[in-house]
């Protein structure tokens, strides 16, 4: 699965000395998120993030990558998902771009409303918003930037 993905760690800028960076193209396959999350989880530990924050970041990254692969690229083998990560002791940033048509996050129905409470899907974006400090989409809606700040 991982053979067609390219992984490289770029050199840190002077502002982020000691930060870990990852830039990777993922195939639009179920399970491809593991290519990112394995390294991300390891580096969260290296940079001293607490287990509750690790859970939050893992959940948000997983939901966002699955959304990009399944809803964005619609599992099209000709499309890729581009992921950039930065992990430092105080800040985690994950940016995910797919090659799909984009979507309007404001149009995602409230999954906590009484009539949607027992609908089995549609919770990913809400979980990303709740468990990260900051989340922004580009205008097209095919790129999401998420940040978690410690404390």
């Amino acid at each position, binding site marked *: 699965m991982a053979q067609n993905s390219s992984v490289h760690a770029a050199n840190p800028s002077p502002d982020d000395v000691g930060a870990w960076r990852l830039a990777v193209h993922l195939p639009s396959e*179920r*399970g491809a998120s*593991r290519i990112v999350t394995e390294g991300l989880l390891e580096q969260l530990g290296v940079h001293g993030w607490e*287990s*509750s924050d690790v*859970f*939050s970041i*893992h*959940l948000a990254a*997983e*939901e966002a990558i*699955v959304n990009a692969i399944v809803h964005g690229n619609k599992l099209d083998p000709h499309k890729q998902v581009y992921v950039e990560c930065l992990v430092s002791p105080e800040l985690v940033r994950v940016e995910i771009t797919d090659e799909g048509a984009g979507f309007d996050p404001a149009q995602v129905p409230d*999954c*906590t409303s009484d009539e949607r*409470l*027992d*609908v*089995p*899907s549609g*919770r*990913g974006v*809400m*979980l990303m918003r*709740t468990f990260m400090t900051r989340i922004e989409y580009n205008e097209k809606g095919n790129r999401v930037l998420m940040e978690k700040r410690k404390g």
Partner: protein
Amino acid sequence: MPTHQRIDVSKVGDVTVVRFNDRKILDEAKIIEFGTELFGLVDLDNRKSILLNFDGVEFLSSAALGKLITLDRKVKSHKGRLKMSNIRREIYDVFQVTKLNKVFDIHDGEAEAISAF
């Protein structure tokens, strides 16, 4: 008796107790199996009282939550009862922010949950 890969099934009195073989319920292929095995308890085995004991489960994604919601609906439509126990703090937080703690019948420990059937 069907063979299960993702879940471990036992009986305590009339209650079917389900434990999970994965610490992280995450991989989409495994989540599909996870759902199939759970739904089979209701659709194939006709079990009416089911307890999901999440001891040892550290992570689950929204796709796994979806399977739990579908299971809850199946159990209710079969006039059965589904309870959950031993949910670690971070996962309970997910249930709370999604308000699924109002949908699911959640107990602290297995013994307490079984006695509540």
